[in-house]
C-alpha cells in the first residue's frame, strides 16, 4: 500500500455538551478514494471542518503531507488550502455574483502571486501569470464539463452545475487531497454517475479523495475504503464489502433489532 497522506490522531470536538467527534483517528493513503459515511449528525462535516481549520479541535492532531508530515491544527483555512487540501461544501458555497471562470480563478489563488503593484502596472510577469491562470481555469472547466458556461454568473447555474463548479474551483489549487462534502446530494442518477466517473478519473490522475456521503450505495462502487462515523465515533473502517456486513454499521443505519 502507498504511504499515508493524511493522518488524524484522536480528533475530538464538542459543541456545548455534544461530542461531534470523539477520539477519531483515521488515515488516508495516497491515491486512495476513501468514503466517509454515517447517519445525519454523525460528525462527518465537523471532521472536514477540523481538517480544513474552519473549526479548531479541542484535542488531537491532523498531519498532512507526502514525506514530512505537517501539523494542520492551529493553521488558518487559507494555510491549509495552500498546503494542498481543497474542499467543497455540503450546502453549495460558490461565489454567487462572480462568473463561473472567476470562481475557478479564485481557486487558483494559492498557485499565483500577483500583488497590488503588478496588477496596477500590468507587469509582464503578472500578465503571463494571468494568462496561465485563465488557461488553467478553462482546462478545469472542461474537466467538469462547464466550459460553455464560463462567462455566466455562477448563481445562474443549475444546482448540479454549481456542484461541479465547486469541484473545479477546488481543483484549481492543484491539491494533493480533495475533500468532497456530499457531492452527490441533490443530484439525479445520471448526474451521480457522471460525478462518480469524474472522481475516479481524478484519482487516476494522482489525486487522493476523501468524500462524505450518507448514501452507501453511491459510495460503495468508487471507494477503496470506507470509514463509518456514528455519534462522533469511528465505528468501522475497511473495504466496502466488509463494511456492508459489519453488524455495528447495520445497527447505526437500521437500528437495533
Amino acid at each position: 500500500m502507498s504511504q499515508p497522506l493524511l493522518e488524524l490522531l484522536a480528533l475530538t470536538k464538542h459543541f456545548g455538551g455534544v461530542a461531534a467527534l470523539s477520539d477519531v483517528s483515521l488515515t488516508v493513503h495516497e491515491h486512495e478514494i476513501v468514503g466517509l459515511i454515517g447517519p445525519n449528525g454523525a460528525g462527518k462535516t465537523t471532521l472536514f471542518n477540523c481538517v480544513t481549520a474552519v473549526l479548531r479541535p479541542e484535542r488531537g492532531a491532523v498531519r498532512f503531507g507526502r514525506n514530512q508530515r505537517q501539523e494542520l491544527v492551529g493553521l488558518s483555512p487559507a494555510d491549509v488550502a495552500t498546503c494542498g487540501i481543497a474542499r467543497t461544501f455540503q450546502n453549495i458555497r460558490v461565489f454567487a455574483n462572480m462568473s463561473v471562470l472567476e470562481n475557478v480563478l479564485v481557486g487558483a489563488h494559492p498557485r499565483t502571486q500577483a500583488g497590488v503593484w503588478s496588477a496596477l502596472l500590468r507587469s509582464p510577469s503578472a500578465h503571463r501569470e494571468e494568462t496561465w491562470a485563465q488557461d488553467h481555469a478553462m482546462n478545469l472547466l472542461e474537466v467538469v464539463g462547464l466550459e460553455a458556461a464560463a462567462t455566466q454568473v455562477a448563481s445562474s447555474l443549475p444546482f448540479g452545475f454549481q456542484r461541479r463548479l465547486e469541484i473545479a474551483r477546488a481543483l484549481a489549487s492543484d491539491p494533493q487531497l480533495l475533500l468532497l462534502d456530499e457531492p452527490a446530494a441533490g443530484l439525479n442518477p445520471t448526474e451521480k454517475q457522471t460525478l462518480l466517473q469524474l472522481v475516479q478519473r481524478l484519482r487516476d490522475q494522482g489525486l487522493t479523495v476523501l468524500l462524505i456521503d450518507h448514501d452507501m450505495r453511491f459510495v460503495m462502487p468508487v471507494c477503496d475504503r470506507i470509514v463509518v462515523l456514528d455519534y462522533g465515533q469511528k465505528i468501522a473502517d475497511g473495504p466496502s464489502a466488509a463494511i456492508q456486513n459489519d453488524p455495528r454499521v447495520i445497527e447505526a443505519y437500521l437500528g437495533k433489532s
Partner: protein
Amino acid sequence: MTMTPTRLGWLVGFVIACAVPGLPLNAYHVDVLTTAGIYAVLALGLNIVVGFTGLLHLGYAAFFAIGAYTYALLSVRLGVPFWLGLVPAIAVAGVCGVLLGIPAIRVRGDYLAIVTLGFGEIVRIAITNLEQWTGGPNGVLGIAHPRVWWPGGTYDFGVASTPYYCLVLAAVLVVAVACSRLADSRIGRAWAAIREDELAAACCGVNTFQAKLLAQGCGAAVAGLAGALFAAKQGTITPDSFDFVLSVMILAMVVLGGLGSVPGAIIGALVLGTLPELLRGFDQYRMMIFGVVMILMMRVRPQGLCGGVRLRRQRSVSPQPLHVSAAA
C-alpha cells in the same frame, strides 16, 4: 482594441468631461463639477472597501480628513509643494486605513459599520481638539495652491476653477483605471470572493486577513488623495467638512451607482454631487425632492444605476464562530 459598449461609454464620458472647460459655463458650475469630481474619487475609493470587498464602512470621511490635514499641515508648516505633499497625504491615509483595519477585522457586517462609524467620529473630534497642531475648529488657513513649473515661468492654480477641474478630472481617471485593473486581477477576485463568501474564500487559500487589510489600505489611500486635492483647492479646511454626513453621502453614492461598479461610483458621485445644486431652484423643497429620488431609487432599482452586486448577510458554516488565525 475592440470597441465594446463599456469602452464606448468610457470614451463618451471622457470626451464630455474634457469638453466641460470649453462650454459656456460660469465658475460656479465648474466648481460644482470639480467638487463632484472629488466626490467621485472618494466614491471610487470607498467602492474598493464596500463594493469590491463587502466591508461596510461608515467612517470613510476620516481618511479624507487625514489626507487633507496631512497635506495642509505639510504645506503651512513646512512649505511642502502640492505635488510633493500628495505622496505623504496618500501614504498617511493608507497607513491609517490599515491600522484601523487591524482591530476592525474581527468584526463583521453591522458591527464593522459601528466600529468604522466610531473611528470616523474619533478622527473628526481629535482634529477639532488638537488645537496646537490642527488649528482646532478654526481649521488650517493659507494652504498653498498647486503650482506648475515650466521653462519660462510658473503658473499658480490660485482661485480659478478650471485648473482644479482638470486636476480632479485627471485624478478621477487615474483612480478609475487603477480600480478597474485591481478589480480584474488576482487581488480583485480575492476581494470579491471575500464579499461573496468569506469562509469559502479562505478555504480557496485566500488570506482573508491580509486581503481585507489591503482593501482598507487601498480605499483609505484613495481618500487621502481626494483629501489633498480638496485641501489644495479650498486653501482652508475645517474639521466640520469631514463629518458623518459626508461618510454617509459617499456611501450613498457608491450604493446609488451600484456596489462594486467602477463607472457606477463615478455616476453616483456625479448625480448626488450635482443634484442638490440642480434642485436649488426648488428652494426649500430641495432636500425633500432629493430624499424622494433616493427612496424611488431603492424601490425601482435597488442594485444601483450600473447594476452592482447586493451584499448578503454573513452566514456561518457551523454553530461555532469561524476560527481566525492571528498568525496571518
